């Protein structure tokens, strides 16, 4: 087991800042959605910040890769994509990370090996194994992190990808973000097992459940998992987490109780880390407020950039179909 003492201040501070940035960014996007600056589906990551931040803080994105779902804002920010380019993408502007063609569900960055933002539940899981095949094929040193939800884990694509990655010993870590619901469905209603990590056993892989509300726990588990994956044993982690908002901006989330939500908000991932750092005397209230102010400022600048950026030219409709 890890201990908070094993973490240095710099790393914890970095992770805290990232989580605050994600929280503030998401709150702002919800507001911009209300103002109709953003349209379509907007899937917020609020409540789940510790998973993306803890896991992605382990990566070296010069050689490692990230694949995720339509709920991709948190992973993109954790990976270091520019908040400005993300907000511009949400505004449908040409300066967005996908030229305004992808929107909320399709963030991409080729320089940071951020492979999307996939809208089809489960469809990106084999792609992650594919990137891992490339790493192995070229005898590189990297690994792949693949994020998906509790709803996606029953898709054939997941099970096919697990088997393939084991028989080919691919360096990939699958992280199921179990936020308890797939849209309005309690994961227990549609799953034959309640502990997803046992699915790893069926494929001779390593599986483990982690507390997805505690960034240090995620960080530790992913570190171990990446080592295993690079040694040829792919890993399945189930991060137990919770989304505070509805499935998307249009979901009133009537299928769960207020008490349930409050229970998770009381173990908020940002608060947990803040308290741990405060106890350890490596964070003061003033510093925390400063980080929060900085995050808000970054987000405001992102909105300004998005507002002021031009729309794509009509001709952009016909570009990027073929090389």
């Amino acid at each position, binding site marked *: 087991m890890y201990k908070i003492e094993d973490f240095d201040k710099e790393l914890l501070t970095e992770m805290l800042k990232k989580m605050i940035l994600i929280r503030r960014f998401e709150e702002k996007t919800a507001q911009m959605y209300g103002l109709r600056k953003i*349209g379509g589906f907007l899937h917020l990551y609020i409540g789940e910040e510790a998973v993306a931040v803890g896991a992605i803080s382990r990566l070296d994105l010069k050689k490692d890769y990230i694949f995720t779902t339509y709920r991709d804002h948190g992973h993109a920010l954790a990976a270091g994509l520019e908040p400005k380019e993300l907000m511009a993408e949400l505004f449908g502007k040409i300066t967005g990370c996908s030229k305004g063609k992808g929107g909320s569900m*399709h963030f991409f960055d080729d320089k940071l090996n951020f492979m999307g933002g996939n809208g089809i539940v489960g469809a990106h899981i084999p792609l992650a194994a594919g990137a891992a095949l490339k790493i192995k094929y070229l005898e590189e040193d990297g690994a792949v992190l693949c994020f998906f939800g509790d*709803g996606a884990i029953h898709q*054939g694509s997941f099970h096919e990808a697990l088997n393939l990655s084991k028989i080919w010993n691919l360096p990939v870590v699958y992280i199921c973000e179990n936020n308890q619901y797939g849209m309005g469905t309690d994961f227990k209603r*549609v799953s034959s097992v309640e502990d997803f990590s046992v699915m790893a056993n069926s494929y001779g892989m390593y599986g483990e459940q982690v507390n997805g509300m505690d960034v240090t726990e995620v960080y530790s588990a992913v570190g171990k998992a990446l080592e295993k994956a690079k040694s040829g044993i792919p890993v399945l982690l189930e991060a137990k987490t919770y989304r505070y908002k509805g499935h998307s901006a249009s979901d009133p989330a009537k299928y769960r109780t207020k008490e349930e939500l409050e229970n998770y908000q009381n173990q908020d991932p940002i608060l947990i880390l803040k308290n741990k750092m405060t106890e350890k005397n490596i964070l003061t209230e003033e510093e925390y407020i400063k980080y929060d102010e900085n995050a808000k400022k970054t987000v405001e600048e992102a909105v300004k950039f998005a507002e002021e950026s031009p729309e*794509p030219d009509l001709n*952009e*409709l016909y570009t990027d179909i073929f090389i």
Partner: protein
Amino acid sequence: MPKITIREALKQAMDEEMDRDNNILLMGEEVAKYNGAYKVSQGMLEKFGDKRVRDTPITEEGFAGIGIGAAMAGLRPIVEFMTFNFAIQAMDQIINNAAKMLYMSGGKFKVPIVFRGPNGPAEYLSSQHSQAAQTFFAHVPGLKVVAPSTPRDAKGLLKTAIRDDNPVIFLESELMYSWEGDVEEGEILIPFGEANILKEGSDVTLISYSKPMKILIQAAGELQNIGINAEVIDLRSIRPLDEKTVYESVKKTNRVVIIDESWPFVSVASYLGWLISKNCFDYLDAPAEIVTSEDTPMPYNHRLEIFAQPSVEKIIDAVKKVMYL
């Protein structure tokens, strides 16, 4: 006559048919406890219970296949896809099993199943979530494909679909669920393969189905203002296709524009264009025109997204072309 929405009409159709036949069940993502992602199955879990209204995991290939197997063995499932974009995951089941079972079993196993859900572009959803899938299905012998545009047609065609002994692809649209129209009380069964002439006209024939019917009617109104009297046809069913109504109209107007939300390449519109040019060749005063979605994936940016789809303006331009104006 009561005015109801397409959403309500679809529910009435399923509700009435499930009352009539115990072998009919509804399954799909969020259809039961959540009352449908778009609330089409509102109240059905409460009425029919979780034996007949079933929530599935997000496993399109699996639950489509379960539906087909149940149909082969004697049930009559209605399978809802949250949208037809996700039915693409179930393509193997639909094409290789549902469509071909009767044929390759020498007529021994029929597959009475309805696959229904929203199809076609919605709004701000980018490439994977906003596409018109009719061509994929209409291409396949063994599948019937229908796509209503009014509440009355939605109800009457869905009831027919549920009673049909063949697999039926039933295409709806998120943006159409709240459209309203008159629907009389009591039994409505609308046969497949009968197009509907929504407006009679003499100068040009406009043909489409599903959601674009709204812009066809608008375009016909604007054309009227500039002295062009358009006939407007709603195909309602793509397979079987009512060729007779189409040819009679084109033989009368001598000009035709076909509007289709799908891509132009080997589409329903381009096929119908060929049929017309073959069967009405001597009557045509101009080559058939098609107005389709642009031949591109759907972008997120709203201006581009709107431009990617058929519009009143594009229809009027096409009409002017066939009228040499």
